[in-house]
C-alpha cells in the first residue's frame, strides 16, 4: 500500500472523523467566547488527546485551533471583543459592519477567507515541509542552535508591547526549563529536594496555568459581566462572499502568503500575522480611508492571514521541532508524548503519519465552512452563556487536565504556580508567548549550545563556520541589531534637527 493510501486509511476512520467533528465544535465554542484563546483551547484539549492514538490526537488539535482562530471573529464582530488576539486587528471593521446590519456578511467573509487562508497554508506546508526536511537532515548542533535562538528572538521582537518585557518573559521560560536533572551534567538543578521536580517542569500543567488559569483569575479579578450582543441583521453568511472574492482576489492571496510566511517563522504566529496583513492591506488599498469604518477589505486579507499562519506554524514545528507559535509549542509537547519526535527524521521514519497530518489539515479547513455557519447562527446563544458560570467550570477542567498528565496532584500545584505567574505577567504587560517558547525550547537550546561549545572548544567563531549556520546566525544578529540601529539613527537625526533649530546652532 502506498504511503498516501496508508495515510488516508489512518484518517478516514469513523473514530478519527468523530474526533475531528467534536473538536471542531469544541474549538468553535472556546474561540467564540471572549477571553478564551485558541491556545487555551489547545491547552485544555491536550489532557484528552493524551488518551488517543497519534493521528486522532493531532487531528483534534489541528481542527480545534483552526476553528478557534476563526471563531474568535464572532465575539469580535458581535460584541467588539475579539475572542482571540488573532482577531483583534480587524475588530473595528467587523463591529462597524455589524452596526450597519451586515454582521452575517462580515462573519461570512471571515469564515470563507479563513478557510481559504488555511488551505493555502496547508498546501505550502505539504510542499515545503518535506523539502525542508531534506535540508534539515544535514543540520548539526550549530544550525539548530541558531534556529532556536532565531525562534526565541522572533518571539521577543514581534511580541506586543516592549521588547524588554518580551525578554523578561523569555528569561522566565528559559529559567523554568533549567529545572530538573535533564542537563548535560545530569545534576539536579533548582529541585529543592522535590522528587517530582527532578523530571523538570511538566510542560502541560505549566501551559494550562499560564494560559487558562491566569485568564480565569483575570476574569475573577475584573468581575466583568457578559455584555449584550448587537443585533447584526440577516444578510446571509455566504451570499456576498463570491463578490468579495472577485473584488479582492489579490488581498486574499496576499493575506494567505503573508500569513503562511509569518506562521512559518519560528516564534511568530497568527496574532502577528493578522496585524501585519491588516496593515499591508491598508497600505496598498485603493480606499485606505475606509479602513476602520466597516470595510470588508482588511477583513478578507487579515482573516486569510491568521488562518494561513496556523498552518504555516507547523512547518518549523514538524521539520525542526521548533514551534512556529505558542499553539505548535504545545503540539510539540504532545508529539513527544506520543513518541513522534518532531524533526527531519519523522519524514523518513513515519511518512504515513505526516501525510495523515496533512490530510487532517485539509479536512479541518473544509469542515470549517459548515461548522462555521452553524456557529454563526448559534452565536447569540453561545455568547449569552454568562462567564461567571463558565469560568468555574473551566477552572475545574484545568485542575483535572493538569492532574491527568501524570496522575499526580503535583501537576495541579504546578498549574497553580504558573497560573499566578501568568496573571502577574499579564498585569505587568509581559507577554506569555516568549515564556512558553523559552520553556519548550530551553532544553533544545541548552543541549545544542553545550554540544556546540564543546565541539568548538569554546570558540564562538565556529558558530559561523558552516554556511547555513552562518546565514542563520547573521540573520539572528540582524534581528537584534536592526531595531537598535534604527532607534540610534532616529535619535541621532532627532538630535541633529534639534541642534539645527537652536538659535545660532
Amino acid at each position, binding site marked *: 500500500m502506498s504511503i498516501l493510501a496508508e495515510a488516508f486509511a489512518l484518517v478516514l476512520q469513523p473514530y478519527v472523523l468523530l474526533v475531528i467533528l467534536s473538536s471542531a465544535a469544541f474549538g468553535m465554542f472556546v474561540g467564540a467566547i471572549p477571553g478564551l484563546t485558541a491556545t487555551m483551547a489547545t491547552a485544555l484539549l491536550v489532557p484528552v488527546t493524551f488518551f488517543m492514538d497519534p493521528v486522532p490526537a493531532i487531528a483534534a488539535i489541528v481542527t480545534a485551533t483552526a476553528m478557534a482562530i476563526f471563531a474568535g471573529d464572532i465575539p469580535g464582530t458581535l460584541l467588539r471583543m475579539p475572542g482571540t488576539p488573532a482577531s483583534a486587528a480587524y475588530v473595528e471593521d467587523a463591529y462597524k459592519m455589524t452596526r450597519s446590519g451586515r454582521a452575517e456578511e462580515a462573519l461570512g467573509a471571515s469564515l470563507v477567507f479563513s478557510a481559504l487562508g488555511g488551505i493555502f497554508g496547508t498546501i505550502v506546508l505539504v510542499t515545503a515541509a518535506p523539502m525542508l526536511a531534506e535540508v534539515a537532515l544535514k543540520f548539526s548542533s550549530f544550525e539548530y542552535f541558531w534556529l532556536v535562538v532565531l525562534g526565541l528572538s522572533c518571539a521577543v521582537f514581534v511580541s506586543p508591547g516592549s521588547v524588554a518585557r518580551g525578554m523578561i518573559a523569555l528569561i522566565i521560560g*528559559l529559567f523554568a526549563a533549567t529545572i530538573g536533572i535533564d542537563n548535560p*551534567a545530569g545534576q539536579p538543578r533548582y529541585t529543592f529536594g522535590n522528587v517530582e521536580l527532578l523530571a523538570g517542569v511538566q510542560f502541560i500543567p505549566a501551559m494550562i496555568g499560564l494560559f487558562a488559569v491566569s485568564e480565569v483569575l483575570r476574569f475573577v479579578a475584573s468581575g466583568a459581566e457578559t455584555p449584550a450582543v448587537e443585533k447584526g441583521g440577516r444578510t446571509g453568511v455566504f451570499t456576498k462572499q463570491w463578490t468579495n472574492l472577485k473584488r479582492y482576489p489579490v488581498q486574499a492571496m496576499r493575506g494567505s502568503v503573508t500569513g503562511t510566511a509569518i506562521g512559518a517563522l519560528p516564534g511568530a504566529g497568527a496574532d502577528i500575522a493578522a496585524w501585519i496583513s491588516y496593515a499591508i492591506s491598508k497600505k496598498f488599498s485603493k480606499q485606505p480611508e475606509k479602513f476602520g469604518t466597516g470595510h470588508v477589505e482588511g477583513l478578507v486579507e487579515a482573516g486569510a492571514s491568521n488562518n494561513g499562519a496556523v498552518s504555516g506554524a507547523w512547518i518549523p514545528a514538524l521539520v525542526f521541532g521548533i514551534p512556529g507559535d505558542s499553539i505548535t509549542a504545545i503540539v510539540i509537547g504532545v508529539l513527544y508524548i506520543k513518541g513522534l519526535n518532531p524533526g527531519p527524521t519523522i519524514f523518513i521514519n513515519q511518512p504515513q503519519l505526516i501525510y495523515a497530518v496533512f490530510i487532517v489539515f485539509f479536512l479541518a479547513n473544509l469542515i470549517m465552512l459548515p461548522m462555521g455557519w452553524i456557529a454563526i447562527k448559534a452565536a447569540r446563544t453561545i455568547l449569552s452563556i454568562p462567564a461567571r458560570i463558565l469560568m*468555574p467550570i473551566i477552572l475545574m477542567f484545568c485542575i483535572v487536565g493538569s492532574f491527568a498528565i501524570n496522575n499526580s496532584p503535583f501537576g*495541579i500545584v504546578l498549574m*497553580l504556580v504558573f497560573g499566578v505567574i501568568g496573571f502577574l505577567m499579564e498585569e505587568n504587560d509581559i507577554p506569555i508567548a516568549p515564556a512558553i517558547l523559552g520553556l519548550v525550547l530551553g532544553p533544545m537550546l541548552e543541549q545544542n549550545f*553545550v554540544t556546540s561549545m564543546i565541539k568548538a572548544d569554546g570558540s564562538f567563531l565556529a558558530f559561523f563556520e558552516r554556511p547555513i549556520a552562518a546565514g542563520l546566525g547573521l540573520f539572528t544578529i540582524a534581528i537584534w541589531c536592526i531595531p537598535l540601529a534604527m532607534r540610534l539613527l532616529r535619535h541621532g537625526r532627532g538630535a541633529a534637527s534639534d541642534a539645527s533649530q537652536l538659535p545660532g546652532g
Partner: protein
Amino acid sequence: MKFNDLLLGLLVLCGGIAIYVSALGFTDIPGQDYGAGTMPRAIAVFASLLGLFMIVKALAAGLRMPRLELAPWLRSRRSVLSVLVALVLVVFYILAAPSIGFVPASLVVMAVLMLTLKTKPLTAIAVSVLACIVIQQAFGRLLLVPLPRSEFLAFLW
C-alpha cells in the same frame, strides 16, 4: 500589582545575580569546561544585562523610586476576595480531594466560585452538580484517569 520599570529592572537584575550565584555550585561534564552550570550562567548574564538596561532606561526617563502600583482590581475588596477565594479553592482541592474524593471536592470548588461570582444559588448548585458528574464520567470512566474516589459515590465509577 504593577511594578514600575525601575522596580522591574531591579527585580530582573537581582534575579540574574541570584541565578549566577546559585549556578556556581553546578558541576561540569568531566573533562570539559561546560556542564550543568553553563545554561543558567548564560541566562543569568542575559538577565543581569537586561536588568541594568531597564534600570538605566527608567532612570533616564525620570523614575527615581522603585514602586509597586496597585491595579484597579486591588482597590475593590470584592475583586481581591474573589481572587483569593479562587486560589484557596484550588489549594483546597489539592489538599482535600485525596481524602474526600473528586466529586465532593470539585463540587465545592465550582459551586463556591460560582456563588462568589454572584451566580444565583440554585443555578450555581445545579450547574456544578451537572458539570461535576460530566467531568467525572468523561475523565474518570471514559479516559480512565484515576480521579480520587469517594466510598459513598462508588456507583459513579
